[in-house]
C-alpha cells in the first residue's frame, strides 16, 4: 500500500496528514481536523493547485504596483507561465477590488483579479 505524508496548506493550522492509497484505488486521509484536508490531500497527490498572487504595473495609481491574485487555485505546473502573462499586464487606475485583470488565464477558466482598490 502506497503511503504519503503531507502537511495541509489550506489554512494556518497546518495539519499533518497521512494519506494511504487503498486497494480499490481510493484514498484514506488521516490527521486532518476538517474536511478540506481530505480534498486537499487527494488533489495534492493527483493534480496539485495553488492560488497565485503577484502584482501588475498600474498607471496613475496611488502606488506604481497593483496587487492581484487568481480567484481560485490554478494548476501548480502553470504557475511560472501565469507569471509570464501577469508580468506583461499594465492597467490604468482607478481599479476596484475584485475587478478582472486577466480573464481566463492560460485557459484555466480562472480569472486574475485585483486584490485592492486603487
Amino acid at each position: 500500500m502506497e503511503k504519503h505524508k503531507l502537511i495541509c496548506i489550506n489554512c494556518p493550522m497546518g495539519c499533518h496528514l497521512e494519506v494511504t492509497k487503498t486497494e480499490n484505488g481510493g484514498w484514506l486521509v488521516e490527521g486532518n481536523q476538517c474536511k478540506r484536508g481530505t480534498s486537499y490531500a487527494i488533489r495534492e497527490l493527483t493534480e496539485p493547485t495553488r492560488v497565485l498572487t503577484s502584482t501588475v504595473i498600474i498607471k496613475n495609481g496611488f502606488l506604481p504596483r497593483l496587487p492581484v491574485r487568481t480567484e481560485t487555485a490554478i494548476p501548480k505546473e502553470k504557475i511560472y507561465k501565469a507569471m509570464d502573462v501577469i508580468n506583461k499586464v499594465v492597467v490604468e487606475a482607478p481599479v476596484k477590488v475584485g475587478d478582472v485583470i486577466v480573464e481566463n488565464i492560460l485557459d484555466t477558466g480562472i480569472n486574475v483579479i485585483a486584490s485592492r482598490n486603487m
Partner: protein
Amino acid sequence: MENYDLVVIGGGPAGLAAAIEARKNGVEKILVIERDRELGGILQQCIHNGFGLHVFNEELSGPEYAGRFITELMSMDIEYKLDTMVLDVTDDKVIHAINQQDGYITIQAKAVILSMGCRERTAGAINIPGTRPSGVFTAGTAQRFINMEGYMVGKRVVILGSGDIGLIMARRMTLEGAKVLAVVEVLPYSGGLTRNIVQCLDDFDIPLYLSHTVIDIKGNKRVEGVTIAEVDENRKPIPGTEISYDCDTLLLSVGLIPENELTAQAGAQLDPHTNGPFVNESMETSRDGIFACGNVVHVHDLVDFVTEESRRAGRGAARYIQNKLVSNGQAFKTKPLNGVSYIVPQTVRIENVEKNLDLFLRVRKVYKNVKLVIKGDDEVIKEIKKRNLAPGEMEHLTLPVNSLTGKSFEYLTIEVKEEA
C-alpha cells in the same frame, strides 16, 4: 487641546478592528492616528493569500483583508489622520502628535488604544560578521519594495531566518525571477508556519538549513557572497561545515519586536516574556483606561487572531468610557510554567469576561503528542491533548467562563505535560 472619547494609535488591522468595535459599542468621538500614508498597516504589502479564514471564512490577500475594515471604518465616519506621528502619550491620556497639516497637536482622550504593531529586527541587532555592503535587507523592507514600490531588490538571494515573512519572500522573489539559494535558520526548527515551509520552500525546491547561520558577508559596495555554517547546541559555528554562496542579496527574517516606546512613555508595565504590555481580560494595560491590542502586545502569526483580540480591546475601551468595567470581584493572574513561554492576558477579572476566556500562548520548543494542562493554583481545570506544538505556532485556548467562576485561586497556570 482637542477632546475625543477614544484615540487609537496605529491604523493597521489591530487599530481598525478596535475602532470599529468601539463604535459598535456606543463610543461616539473616535480618532485613529496613523503614521503611514494610508490605513491598513503591514497588510497592504502582504499581497499573498491566507488571511481571513477565521474572521470571514474565506481566503483573502492582505490588502483585501485590510480593505474590508477600511471600508467599514469609513462607512461609520470614524475620523482618522494619516502621515501623523504620535510623539508621546501621557499617563493622564493626553496624546502629543505632529504632522505637516496640523503641526503640533495635543489631544485629551477618555480612553486610548495602543495598536502600533511591531518592527523587524535588523542586521545591527543580530551581530553578523563581515562587511556592510548594500544588498542586506530585512524581509519586510524587501516585501514593501517589491510589492508596493515596484523595485526588485536582488537576483541571487540568501535568506537568514525562517520566520513567515522570510518564507513568503523566498517564494515571492522566486516568482519574480530571482534565485533563492538557501533559507538558513539558527534554531533546530523553523520559526514560521509549517504550511509556509510547504508552499513557499518545498514547492520551489529551496533548501532550508536548520541549525545553521551566516558567519560572513563579503563585498564592499554590494553583497558579493555569504558564508553559512552549521552551529552546535550553543549556537557556535562548527568549523568545517561552511558553505559559501555567490549572491547579491541577504534578506533577514530574524524576528519582530513589539513597538512599545509609547507604551513605556505612558507608564504601562511591560512583560519581559512578550516584550509587550501586561494586559487584562479587556486588553487594558496597567495604566487605567489605556488599552493595547495586536502585535504591540505579542507578535501574532495570524491577523485573524489580531482582529479578535482588538475587538475585545474595542469593547473594553467602550465599557471603560461608559464606566461598566468591573475592577473588583474574582480575579487571578496567569503564569506560564513548564514549556510555556508566555500567556496573554496576564491578569483576569472574571466579571468582565463575556462568555469565554480566550488565552493565547506560545511554547518554548517543538513537542509531539503532549498535553497542555491548565490549573487554578494546584487544581486541574482542563487538559488538552496536542499532537503538535511549536514555538512558531501560537496556541489559542478557550475556557468557558462558568468553568472558572466561584473558584478562588491566585494563579491560573498552563504547562506542557509530556506523556510518560
